[in-house]
């Protein structure tokens, strides 16, 4: 089914994000990543016709694919972020590292038995995307990419939630969204430097 294709896309966008060295492009790839996630949610939701997941999908599209990238861009203009972001980890390391992570996660999830229709690969992929987003956080010194790394970690969670468990309880998902917004608010507050001059 189409799900696998989109999961592939998800991973691909994440990996591309790892190699970008410009902030805006990074944000763009993040929004792409979330977009794919949203579509995935909708697809799976339709397949299982699960209302909750459809809502989640829509929310994802709205908040993650559009809202947050926009906000980030807004911030970056407001607080003059450094837009030139060089990955710390050398490319040739990264080239080895990323496949290695994938291999490892598949090896990791291999003994997982009797999951519903054996979609252990989804678990593997989401774990690997977790690792990758950690990698994203590691390879940048500036704050903004770190935030994006954090956000894509959130995406990895959603991926897991959508694929492996076919949706979490509604309440939880909404809670997660709420917290996400909260996080953005706090970040906004944190960006205000003018208090620190005192």
């Amino acid at each position, binding site marked *: 089914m189409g799900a696998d294709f989109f999961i592939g896309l998800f991973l691909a966008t994440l990996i591309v994000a790892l190699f970008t060295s410009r902030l805006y492009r990074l944000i763009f790839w993040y929004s792409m990543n979330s977009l794919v996630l949203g579509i995935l949610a909708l697809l799976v939701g339709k397949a299982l016709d699960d209302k909750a997941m459809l809502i989640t999908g829509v929310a994802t599209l709205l908040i993650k694919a559009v809202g947050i990238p926009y906000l980030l861009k807004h911030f970056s203009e407001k607080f003059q972020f450094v837009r030139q972001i060089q990955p710390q980890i050398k490319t040739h390391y990264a080239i080895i590292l990323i496949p290695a992570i994938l291999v490892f996660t598949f090896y990791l999830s291999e003994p997982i038995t009797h999951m519903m229709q054996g979609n252990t690969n989804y678990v593997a992929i989401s774990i690997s995307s977790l690792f990758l987003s950690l990698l994203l956080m590691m390879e940048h010194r500036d704050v903004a990419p770190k935030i994006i790394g954090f956000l894509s*970690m959130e995406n990895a969670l959603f991926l897991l939630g959508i694929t492996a468990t076919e949706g979490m*309880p509604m309440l939880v998902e909404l*809670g997660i969204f*709420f917290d996400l917004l909260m996080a953005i608010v706090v970040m906004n507050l944190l960006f205000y430097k003018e208090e620190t001059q005192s």
Partner: protein
Amino acid sequence: MMLALLVLPAAVMFIVSFLKYRKAKFLLPISSFAILLPIVKLFMLSKPYAILGSYLVADKLDTYVLLVSSLVGIGVTLALLTLGKHVRVTDKAYRRFYRFFAIFWVGLIFSILANHMGIYWIGLELATLSTVYMIKTNHTLAAHKEAWNYMIVGAIAISLVLFGIILMYASAKPILGERAMQFDLLLQHAKEIPSPFLFEMGFAIAMVGMFVKMGFFPMNLWLANIERASFYPVAALFSGILESAVIIGFFRFSRIAMQINYVHLFGFVFVYMLLTIFIVAFLIFRAKDFMRLFSLSGVEHMALIALFWVSGGTFAALLHFGAHAFLKPALFLSTGVLESNGKYRIAGALKGYSGKKGTLFWVLVSLFLLAIISLPPSPMFFSELYGFGAMIQTAKSSNHILAMIAAILLLLILLSVIFYRFVAIYQSMKYEGKAEEKKVYASELLALILFAVCLFVLLLPATFDYLRSIV
């Protein structure tokens, strides 16, 4: 209904914190004292008591934790009254502190009372994010930087926890369906979970998240830095309450994991804690100022609690938890007072307190200092006796008995390194350096007395029986 009661004071605090006029300054503490009342009420009720369906359920364990936390909160707010006398703090920051304290409190109630992994996580996240801002109420560059650090670390940790939760949920969903997120159900059906490996993996990830959040291995200094940079009441909240929100999650998850595979759980936690305490011991051996010292020792004690819990010494763990939750904030507050003239001079810090208040103050502080290294008759002495007893029991029942005993011996040796350091600190505080006139205010003293009384209550046989009856 009960939920409304619980949240009410926080809500009031939140709203009041927006009001500009001067009365607010006095309304805030009162509203924060009010947090105790519903909790006492809750404490009286018969357990388990469903507050919000199966989402929030009050049982003995979490009401105990909540009670302790609320007492700590009250003590902290008491000390907060005279914060301005020791450090420069604007009115705005003061109000904002309360605003976020309200959010923090709500998050805390949710995470502690949660019978549902998701709710637990949400509450935890709320509490974390609000503390991030509480750190920043102290307007220094350092505080700003540390707030960011905490933001990042907290974010990573929290997401790991959620990831783990989802995996566990996934592992249990085939048998429990949507209700696979409820702790009690999970506990009951732990044995039937179809894919224990998946659960354990989730558990491992979640635990790593929690441990990182509590400042365990790897590197233990960021927590210290944060607590150094923020106002001392914030530090007190950190060590007193936030940690308790995390540790209760650890309690719940590990109980389920025990059902699934005890050996794996024990091995994982034991190795992790040994590493943590090893590092912490040597960090403390070098620690040069109070805040770092105390926050590091906080890490140490959290590690001990976790160890006691997984090695079956639940009573010891709970007692130790209570003792630590009261002792550490007390120490942080007194540290704030000791450092009131801005310098962290350890030598002679306890000198120069004259008059009734002063004397009482330094006596209390030295008592706390000696209690934190679990000298009798501090509750920690007993909790460590029982906790290590439980550990030895596990060792005896395991089939690597000598190795286990060696490990425990190593643990004890590391603890005595910490012990040595604290003795040295105490001595130099009391006997070295030169005395200079210092002041202590009634409210702080009151807070310390409150903590002292709570500690004493912990020692009563009735309390012991209650704690034994919890799990």
